[in-house]
């Protein structure tokens, strides 16, 4: 299905089509891997909104990427509950193993590492999300194994990304 058609199906769920902006941006991001200007334009056209409006909405939400990201995304929560249980040490282990600083992407474009605010895994922290799936807890000693598993798994091409989300 074309993105345009997918967005029409999404929009039908709502009494007012504008409500489909978030799921439409998500659908566009799943196809492009991030939200380049053409993705924003496609969403705008499908919902009869302006690209400026759609960009304004996208820029408000942390899960939308307005810059390119790696094929895999690793997010480590460093909010209070996770931090009290060693999130910083977990983050540093990822930084060491990947040789990239939080907020950055490995030079081969494989993995983006970033810190995030509370994931809602407070009782089981430190929490990390590997391509949006939570792992709890992730101790520094778990990091090498997680990365091995990730590299061994076939890298998701952006157009083959998880489409189960609405």
């Amino acid at each position: 299905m074309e993105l345009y058609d997918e967005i029409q199906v999404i929009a039908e769920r709502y009494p007012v089509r504008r409500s489909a902006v978030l799921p439409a941006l998500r659908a566009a991001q799943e196809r492009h891997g991030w939200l380049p200007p053409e993705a924003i334009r496609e969403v705008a056209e499908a919902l009869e909104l302006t690209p400026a409006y759609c960009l304004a909405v996208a820029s408000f939400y942390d899960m939308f990427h307005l810059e390119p990201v790696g094929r895999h995304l690793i997010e480590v929560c460093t909010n209070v509950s996770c931090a009290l249980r060693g999130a910083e040490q977990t983050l540093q282990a990822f930084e060491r193993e990947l040789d990239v600083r939080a907020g950055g992407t490995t030079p081969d474009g494989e993995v983006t590492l970033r810190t995030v605010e509370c994931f809602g895994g407070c009782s089981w922290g430190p929490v990390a999300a590997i391509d949006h799936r939570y792992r709890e807890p992730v101790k520094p000693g778990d990091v090498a194994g997680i990365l091995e598993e990730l590299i061994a798994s076939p890298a998701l091409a952006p157009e083959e990304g998880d489409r189960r989300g609405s």
Partner: protein
Amino acid sequence: MGRRTLLFEDADQADLTKLAEYERVGGYRSLRKALRMTPAAVIDELIASNLRGRGGAGFPMGRKASFLPKPEQSSKPSYLVVNADESEPGTCKDREILLRIPHQLLEGVLIASYAIQAETAFVYIRGEYLTEFEVLQAALEEATSRGLVGGNILGSGYSVSVVLHRGAGAYICGEETGLLESLEGRRGQPRTKPPFPAIAGLYASPTLINNVETIATVPRILAMGGERYAELGVENSAGTRLFSLSGNVARPGNYELELGTTLRELVYEIGGGVPDGRSLKAVIPGGSSVPVLSAAELDTPLDFDSMARAGSMLGSGAVIVIDDRCCMVQLGLRVAQFYQHESCGKCTPCREGVRWLVSILRRIEAGDATQGELDLLLNVCDRILGKCLCPLGDAAAMPVASYVAKFRDEYQRHIDGRGCPFRGSSSLEGVLAPVDQHHAHLRAGIEVPV
């Protein structure tokens, strides 16, 4: 008082994500019962239960439902919106409901929708909760295929559809009017109140908004009767609540307790106390936005009135235990950094004030602050408190002011000693907050400050 399993009754013995299992333990019987009652009688039952909202504000649920105009009094349709945007730091209880008892939540959605005669219910679920969304979606599909959701449900003549809507990463969308803006396809910036959502909410129509736990409790209330539910707990705090226990505690987890159980019982008897031979320094009793309690206040009961008397709040039921390794200036900084990151930017006191809190706290922690800057910190808290459209600014100012009030000598020692007395050994030392994270470009490795 103590542990009391009501919400999660049967959840340990059966896989309640499956419709058949849920029905086997009595699931959807409350819905059948509600559909035989008048909508007004269902609301009366909720009022009788004294159930107060479990999201943080604690507003009586039945009364809120009664504020909506009846269908014949309004030209616009009514909506039910379930707030599943759980994101108050420390809180992970709604997630467990979504994962383990999704049908009980759906049953509550259907009963509450019927009570306000809504034809459409929305569940706004935070975008990061992907697995949780999938579990709820599977439950919704199963319920729909069995005629529990959709047209003329269970032959009652009542029709309702349920739409699951995923957020995209914004704490402020847990605030009810920010959520409505987001659900309407906008930036999640809170609205002015009044009008309240009961009069003009989603699409300017009458809207009932409740937290996941509140809605999941509704089938239990219908089953046992509002008056019997009201007998649980203590005065003004009826029933049970899920508490998310986290931080420096031996057995963290979600625990369902009768309201009025003391913090000490939760932290020590149920949670196993502080591990590693450390001592308890402080407890945040209701999520990172509420004032802190000291070790001397552990006998405070977990109920709305007792927490208010102790100068704090029950909030979202997130109890964060902090041991003696934690520097309270670093705690203030990390909490303030969260709210700086999440401020929507609409109100100046929050947008600018919280940034000020962060920069002053950073100077205190670095040992660069003068005495006057500690006063300035409290002054900025005062200039935020109560001066914004939504509670986010307060959520930053209240805890920071409470850390200074209760641990003033620790703040003073940073100033007098020109540095952190923990000398690098605090449990929060060097924690990297997203607000301090610089995004590096994929190409060329050039760092671009955000």
